[in-house]
């Protein structure tokens, strides 16, 4: 596991690796010779940037271009220019706001328990246990499962008439729940799938960071008479803060993009996200606009709106993290 071998918690933050230390006394001439000497470096990184340009940057810009047109899937280059009208319509579209609300609630329902559970699991696995490697491997298994396979199994478990969960509920005398039909029940069910899949992954990241916390801190805390719980709160958590911020950022991005689970949870391929759109996320709305209704301009607009939302949310996260760090100093 490469993750487990990371030694510094800083390495887990979202910030790019620090640039090579600059030497201020370099003359322009020297810099040029260094660049020339490094020309093979550019050749080596070129393939990545070519692929990035063709499959990330170009679609990115092209999506923005399409979002300014009213066009359909089969006439993708022949639409009519409408400027920002798609964006104005989106802001007045109740389907967009419904999807945004669902994305937020499902995001909270899945991210919060997921990260808390991961933190607890990592703490437990940090103890000296028998078969520790086995437990650590098992935890990563859900992450290695495909979304489609996991969701299909879960949607059967949550089935209304023949699902295992309702069978259990009925056997203990409770009423069966129409998991897919209700608003909260469907969102909880989807949050369970997400949580199941990502908890182990986050736990391993936390575990790696925990292992780099110096033992002396705990020894000192113990001498001061701090209980295990106090040690967790006052030593472990503060030391993990950059890592926690990283996992929050990554989980938030994942939550905004949530798509496969709600699409497959319906069970018959509809893209409406439930009878009243009760679990239609932004990703699913975009798919419905583009690939069920064939309004590719609308879909591109929604895609860009999602991108903006992610930028804002991640920016807020980073800002809060930085303010906290400054307050600690």
């Amino acid at each position, binding site marked *: 596991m490469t993750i487990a071998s990371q030694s510094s918690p800083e390495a887990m933050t979202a910030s790019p690796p620090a640039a090579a230390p600059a030497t201020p006394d370099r003359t322009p001439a020297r810099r040029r010779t260094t660049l020339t000497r490094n020309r093979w470096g550019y050749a080596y990184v070129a393939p990545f940037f070519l692929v990035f340009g063709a499959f990330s940057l170009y679609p990115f810009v092209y999506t923005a271009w399409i979002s300014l047109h009213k066009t359909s*899937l089969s006439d*993708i280059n022949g639409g009519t220019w409408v400027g920002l009208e798609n964006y104005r319509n989106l802001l007045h579209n109740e389907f967009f706001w419904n999807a945004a609300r669902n994305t937020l609630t499902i995001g909270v329902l899945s991210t919060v328990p997921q990260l808390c559970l991961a933190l607890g699991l990592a703490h437990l696995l940090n103890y000296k246990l028998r078969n520790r490697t086995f437990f650590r491997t098992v935890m990563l298994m859900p992450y290695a499962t495909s979304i489609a396979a996991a969701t299909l199994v879960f949607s059967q478990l949550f089935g209304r008439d023949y699902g295992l969960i309702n069978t259990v509920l009925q056997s203990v005398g409770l009423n069966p729940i129409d998991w897919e039909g209700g608003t909260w029940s469907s969102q909880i069910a989807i949050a369970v799938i997400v949580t199941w899949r990502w908890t182990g992954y986050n736990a391993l990241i936390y575990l790696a960071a925990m292992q780099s916390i110096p033992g002396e801190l705990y020894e000192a805390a113990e001498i001061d008479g701090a209980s295990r719980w106090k040690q967790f709160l006052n030593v472990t958590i503060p030391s993990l803060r950059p890592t926690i911020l990283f996992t929050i950022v990554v989980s938030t991005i994942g939550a905004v993009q949530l798509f496969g689970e709600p699409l497959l949870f319906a069970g018959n391929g509809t893209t*409406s996200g439930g009878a009243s759109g009760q679990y239609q996320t932004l990703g699913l709305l975009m798919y419905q606009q583009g690939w069920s209704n064939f309004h590719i301009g609308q879909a591109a607009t929604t895609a860009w709106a999602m991108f903006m939302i992610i930028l804002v949310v991640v920016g807020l996260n980073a800002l809060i993290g930085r303010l906290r760090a400054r307050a600690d100093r």
Partner: protein
Amino acid sequence: MFHSMRGKAALGAALAAVLLTAGCGGSDDSSDDSAASYDPDAPVTLTVGTFGTMDFDNAGLYDEYMKLHPNVTIKENNIAQSANYYKALQTHLAADSGLDDIQALEIGFVADVVQNHADSFVDFAAEDNGDELKGNFYDWKWGQASTDDGKTIGLGTDSGPQAMCYRKDLFGQAGLPTDREQVGQLWSTWDQYLDVARQYKTTTGKPFLDSPASVFSSSVYQGDEAYNDEDGNPIPEDSSGVKTAWGLASQAASEGLTANLKQFGDEWNAAFSNGAFATIACPAWMLGYINSQMGDAGTGLWDIAPLPGASESASNWGGSFLGVPAEGKNVEAAKDLAEWLTAPEQQITLFTETAHFPSSPKAAEDPAVVDATNAYFSAAPTGQIFGQAAENIKRTPIGPYDTQIQDAFTTALTDVAANGTDPDEAFDNAVKAANQAIGG
């Protein structure tokens, strides 16, 4: 070597451009002169794009054609889900590349092709044998694939005349008649059908039909208009057919007469074997679906009666067409194959081998079809039942968004049945979703 950022960017852009054009190239082969140089005996490989189970291969039609024309090799590209197939077809049309020599078109999408892509397909009405071809099909079938100015972009394969399938054993347990004549008399109208459903629910405590969609999707096509006006413009809110169908289906949904299963979902599939419902609206192709879900255990449990209201107007659900992209490499050979596959003789084979009901009255009136019975469905005279329905089908105008509009209404009906949402509120929601799909 490139020393500046601009140089590198230029290199990247140039290479990306090369990659992209290479990926999209090769579509410029024009076939303007293909008709002149067409040699029917030259070796040719034809590709046929299909979706779901169209069964040309299962019915042995490809093999037969290749035997008749040893120079032809047929290759089928099948995509299981109709919606996914259509997405791929749309992108191929947009890129003008990657199209098969023959493309199947489902009824839910054919109007989009008729309205927006008619020029990309061969016009069969303009062929020398155009009148003869037209005479092969029901008027409504030919009309569905024709533009206002008389171009016809596809030849009909099967059709989906509807009847009502019912479980004889469950009817017997509920004290209802089981004989198909008597069952047919129980419901000459949809209101009577709903009364039987209420009676069944009171007696057994169980739902009578699988889903409100069974009522909605079949009764909506019995009126003069379904989702579109005469010109093919979507009118989900004002259509008389939608209003009638919604009234009936929302009664069934709000009174709990249905099992509220989502058609083609997992639980729906499982419910066939579990006897969770006693009736289901049955287009001809549904018979094969029921058979595949229940297997041999279901033999003789089912029978078929006419659809409620069938004496006044029958209803069609599904059916497909074969179109030939006009810019293909083998247009002439592809036309020959498409005409042969959809000819009455082959439609008869498709019915007797795989139960797809013909879209050609010549085929439907053939003794092999008229006298056909289905052993699995208690030897019901399927040829007569569906043949009568097919004759009574009106030409309801179809439009480019029928699939999405139907989805919006059946989804809202699920909401009524599952959450007790007020039918009027659910109707408004459905209209909003439909308008969203139309693009308003």
